[in-house]
């Protein structure tokens, strides 16, 4: 009788021990896992470069005189078309908004993309094809030295004209 009661007490103690151990173990494991995930998550920021050695988004493209009135000039290094019409200068991106190919300018018609056949009108608006968005228009300005400067980060509306 006495023995069996003592045995039950031992059993209970063992159960408590077991529970306590399981709790400590799972707390420990959770802490280590959370810590590891946190460290890895923070370190993942390493993958994203902070300094880009790419062509600058703001760049001089030459004196306004180099682009006579009524002409369209493709500037391959900046991947844009520079227009000079009576109302002023404007710059349209040559990067197709679909998958990044260079579009071709078709005089009087607009732009065509060689990769997937997107067509844009003279203002860069999508006529048809898979391109989801119109071609970007970039802001222009004049540098202190009198050069035209394009800023490919600064997107403007198609009414934009820059007068020198």
């Amino acid at each position: 009788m006495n023995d069996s009661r003592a045995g039950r007490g031992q059993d209970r103690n063992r159960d408590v021990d077991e529970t306590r151990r399981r709790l400590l173990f799972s707390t420990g494991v959770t802490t280590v896992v959370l810590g590891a995930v946190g460290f890895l998550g923070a370190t993942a920021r390493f993958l994203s470069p902070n300094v880009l050695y790419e062509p600058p988004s703001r760049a001089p493209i030459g004196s306004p005189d180099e682009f006579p009135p009524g002409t369209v000039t493709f500037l391959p290094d900046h991947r844009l078309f520079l227009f000079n019409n009576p109302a002023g200068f404007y710059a349209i991106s040559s990067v197709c908004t679909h998958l990044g190919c260079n579009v071709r300018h078709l005089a009087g018609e607009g732009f065509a993309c060689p990769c997937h056949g997107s067509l844009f009108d003279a203002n860069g608006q999508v006529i048809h094809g898979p391109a989801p968005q119109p071609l970007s228009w970039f802001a222009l300005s004049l540098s202190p030295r009198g050069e035209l400067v394009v800023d490919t980060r600064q997107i403007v509306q198609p009414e934009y004209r820059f007068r020198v």
Partner: protein
Amino acid sequence: MSVLTAVGERGLATWRAVRRSIFRVGWPRTDKDRAAAMISSVVLHVHPAKVQRHSLRASYTLGLGLISFYLFGVLIVTGVVLMLYYTPHPPDAYRSMKDLQFVVTFGLVLRNMHRWAAHAMVFVVFLHMCRVFFTGGYKGPRQFNWVVGVGLLLLTLGLSFTGYLLPWDQLAFWAITVGSNIAGYAPWLGAEVKYLLLGGNVIGAGALLRFYVLHCIILPLLAIMLVAVHFYRVRKDGLSAPPLPEPPPVEEMVAGRFPPSTRSYGLMALTDRPAQPVVEAEPDDEVLAWPHLLYRELLLLLVVLVVLHAVALLFNAPLEEIADPTRTPNPAKAPWYFLGLQELVSYSAFVGGVLVPTLMVLVLVLIPYLDPAPRGVGVWFAPERSWANRVFAALASVTILVTLVGMFFRGPNWAWVWPWTQ
């Protein structure tokens, strides 16, 4: 004279001792020794000592998994030696291609082999997947190995895609432009993924270096690990699924207890594995892996190497002019295995570039769990599985069809052309 003999005998004894320290078993001359050799050698023990006659039939497996593995081996060997001459920085990257083509001894052949083996591997891995599906090889207990296989298919595509940029020619540059912009269409994280992949906003030096590291280190390591898991599971579950006459009796597996059937050899006995296929197999259904399996493997290796050499000697890998971000070739095409996607992308970038591929991968991963019934395993086109086979065949055909359209029926401005009119 007797001194010479003594020295000679001593030398011979040392030589034998050294040889035994490397190869514990001598050249095996009996079946028993061959079985022992299979188990005691680290290289050979990827094989079981005995294999089912069924899985040796060339018409059953077509050897496609093994061919993929050989191609992977060729790619590692040729890839490592190509690295000795390659500079992962534009424009030197392109110059190293020219060096390989015109200056380095056998550089041309090794690059050709690398290129053609890469194309072949994409194709053979795809065929291997079809073979496993049509023979019901993804059914229990091999469900998870099918999932590992899907991972290997994706890694194969990733390896091929990252390698595509490295020559830094027009073909490379514009294929990767199209491909990486597709990634940008993924919802929520697309733009960030593209930024991380390219290490910037444009494909330049940073992107080339990232693709190089992915291609030469990260993806191959992942692939090697997955191949190891894939092979381990194949080894433990049996070389390929044998035909099952009736649903297997489910044996309760108790951890720490050996399976009741112990027709196993050496190391195999120590692992829990489904007892069923071994129990069902008739003793005379099995033959010794050496020579029956081993010699077939070596013969297939020989065939693969001979064909690859022939192709590499006859056809040069393409190399166009140096990458020019200002000039898009017309048409600009992705690598051929992504032309199906590019065709879909020409209708809608999101649907073709993100939705369809994601769904396809999801369906592939889920196949063994959506279709778990253990019937029609181990034979080609089992009538019990005709429905599953039809669906899969239809999907595979559509994939092949759109790929062919992208390859041959799309000309300048992605307009429809007939290949024979060009």
